[in-house]
């Protein structure tokens, strides 16, 4: 069939280059799940409403069901699997401490949305956090513990920054 032709794409996902040949219509989220084998990014709807599939594309939060893999050719993608470095990312730690998840299905999208918010607004108000979650649907938590998780993540970021500063000063 005509549309079985494939095109090569190379994406850097969580710091690793991944080259594959994909159908042009392949959605980024399917590329991540099926071609890259990273099933931490989930699919929650088919109309770009739920935000469960949110990843960072060149540092910006995007719904990966709304981007074609070919559009992301050459881009840097961060998924939930790439959040943790030597220790949990402050957002992961915040969600864990403040019960920001129940079933865990929207959590990857929620955490990447939150990390994007904190990278652009380091000290958001509660209302700003709630508004930043407008692109995310969670059916379990009632959102308040997600808000607390983001606030806790921000505290952890500040704490880590301060302790890094102290170490730098000590040197």
């Amino acid at each position: 069939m005509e549309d079985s032709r494939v095109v090569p794409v190379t994406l850097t996902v969580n710091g690793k280059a991944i080259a594959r040949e994909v159908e042009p219509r392949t959605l980024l989220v399917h590329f991540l799940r099926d071609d890259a084998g990273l099933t931490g990014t989930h699919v929650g709807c088919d109309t770009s409403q739920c935000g469960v599939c949110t990843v960072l594309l060149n540092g910006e939060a995007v719904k990966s069901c709304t981007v074609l893999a070919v559009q992301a050719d050459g881009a840097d993608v961060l998924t939930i699997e790439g959040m943790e470095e030597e220790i949990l990312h402050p957002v992961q730690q915040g969600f864990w401490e403040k019960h920001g998840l129940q079933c865990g299905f929207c959590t990857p999208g929620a955490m990447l949305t939150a990390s994007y918010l904190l990278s652009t607004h380091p000290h958001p108000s509660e209302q700003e956090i709630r508004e930043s979650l407008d692109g995310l649907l969670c059916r379990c938590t009632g959102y308040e513990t997600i808000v607390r998780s983001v606030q806790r993540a921000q505290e952890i970021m500040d704490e880590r920054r301060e302790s890094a500063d102290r170490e730098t000063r000590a040197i």
Partner: protein
Amino acid sequence: MADVIGSALKRHEDIRLIRGKGQYTDDMKIPGMVYASMVRSPYAHARIVAVDTAEARRVPGVQAVFTGRDLKDEVGMVPTAWIPPDSDMKMTPHPALAYDFVRYAGDAVAVVIADTPYIAQDAADLVRVEYDAMPAVTNPRDAAKEGAPLVHEDIAGNVAFHWKAGVSVDEVFNKAEVVVRHEFRQQRLVPSAMEPRAAVAQWNAATDELTVWVTTQNPHIHRLLMSGMLGIPEHKLRVVAIDVGGAFGSKIACYPDEVVVSWAARKLNRPVKWTETRSENFTVTTHGRDHVEEVEVAGTKDGHIQAIRVKAYANLGAYLSTAAPGVPTILFGLIVNGAYAIPHASAEVFGMLTHTTPVDAYRGAGRPEATFLVERMVDLYSEAVGMDPLAVRKINLIPADAFPYTNPFTLQYDSGNYQGALAKALEMVDYQQFRKEQDNLRKQGKYVGIGFSTYVEMCGLGPSEVAGAVGFQGGLWESATVRVHPTGKVTVFTGASPHGQGEETTFAQIVAQELGLPPEDIEVVHGDTAKIAMGWGTYGSRTTVVGGAAIHMADQKVIEKARKIAAHKLEVGEDDVAFEQGLFSVKGLPARTVTFQEAALDAYLAWSLPKGMEPALEGTAFYNPENFTYPFGTHIAMVSVDPETGDIELMRYVAVDDVGIVINPMLVEGQIHGGLVQGIGQALYEGAEYDDQGQLLTGSFLDYAMPKARFFPKFETAHTVTPSPHNPLGVKGVGETGAIASTPAIVNAVMDALAPFGIHDLPMPLTPRKVWQAIAAKGGTH
């Protein structure tokens, strides 16, 4: 060691979930796997004239196309597992793939199986189905009218069953000083778990065994029902649900899709995966609620409610789903008196078939519908007698010394102190002050309102004898195995099947407390019929109540055996051995001890066990509760309504819940919050709508208003603690209270705000448009 029960332990399951390492069904990948896509009817009611699969079969990568006729003689009907007694219930034959008639838009008629999901979907679009469209009916009361289109030809009047409970209250009504009548529309809701359903089936031709990974709340019930449909004996059928992304009742039912995939995996001898799209989730995964209710209350002029009479038309959709008949009957009709000492009550329910998506349990399942009508009627009755709704509640709430309280339907409410919860809520809200401010604001043209819900619900399902008596085709006990390993680490196997509730943590807390072990030494295994002998799953706020109690009983068996081993080692009688915080010691000689871990190792080495004792250390228990549990509380909502726009702002929300003993306060708060947002969602935002032809008009998150973060203030939660007297842990269940209590509190508050306009009731959801129109119809603000 501090108490583990009652502490806000961080969740064990989060360790994988926050790293993206959860294992949801759609994450499964098996070599050689092929993908299924369903062909669904666009018509709500039609005769299938012909199905042409030729073009679809020609698509490269398509492995097979099956239609209803291919499955007809090989797959049994999708069953209903709840048959209310004395209701003359008619079965609604439900083929896994339709072959003669389709009865709702979304009914599956064929399945395409292909090498990739994209090809399967492409080819599904090429299956040509010729339909002879027929008229449809979607409203449950319209369905009962003379001449309404029949959903099943041989079920007259579309009445699947007619169920009654209670005794005649006519005489009380005839003599009553005050009678208030009202009709409520309990709108249809879409459960909308964030994870769509999915199933992966793998046939093992060498052993004749089928494994099905599926998004279910109850793997063993699935195994039982699928075994019957597929003709695969239970011991050759394994059902697995590892991580399930939310359910809220919508993953109780056994669905056609799962059966079709299982049948196809055997037929093709290849692993087959099916993943629902969100659009499919809206149209084929079970919905909730959807009643038309005629309610009457009789009382005195001075605020004593004497009787309640309910007649409900419950829309059950096109087929009776797995638990559907139990929801609007047993779980609804038997508790319509709510938390009030109403001496006389009767309930009558027509289970109606319509050309709509099947309706089954949705968070609260019957109790939200009951709570809504009684809480709303208390307010309407208060208005009729010119009394404050809080005063009327105080008069009619069941007194604390009346427990155990037998309600008019012979349910026995186990324990309660409703006045205590109300008092606590009123400590958090200055009611008189609010009324003063409300008066002042009204003079300024601002409209605020306060609404109460002093609720009770029945959960912790449930006593198996009662399950049998009310027609549930299964038991409602739960199983637990606590397996202690030689090193003293523990694996717990539970027949409950949590899917977001956090029982890997809660259950570990129970075992940690009782065996005196660190929680991290305990692993909880659930959701796999090959690992767990039997269980009934997670729904009806039963997991901690029933599953937790089973674990408690298994713990006791472990402790008793370990005590004997310790006594043997200490060379004293077992009565002389105390067990505390993981240490066996000789009473009065605290220096002579054996640790739990030492006893475990001795049990496995078996070098020196008490005479006649079998080696190893594990306990298995089956807990069959003697009653349901009855959580209760007081919720208070405060809202402000903008008369110019109809917009409702939720100013404060106070929830005081008594769910008995709390094992993990952080998780309990999470359950309450989640329930609140779903209950408030029903009051203000959510509602599924069909057009006259049976097309779902609210078939996506674009059209169906799921609540979002910015819609809510901070919730103010508190507890009173009245343990369940019959539950070994004293717990009552918390999964559904928020959804049950909150809906009427919100509507009561909005109607209180709108009282100056002469508006007494509006159908949910209370959208700004509806509110504005109602205000305008009453002459507006001018």
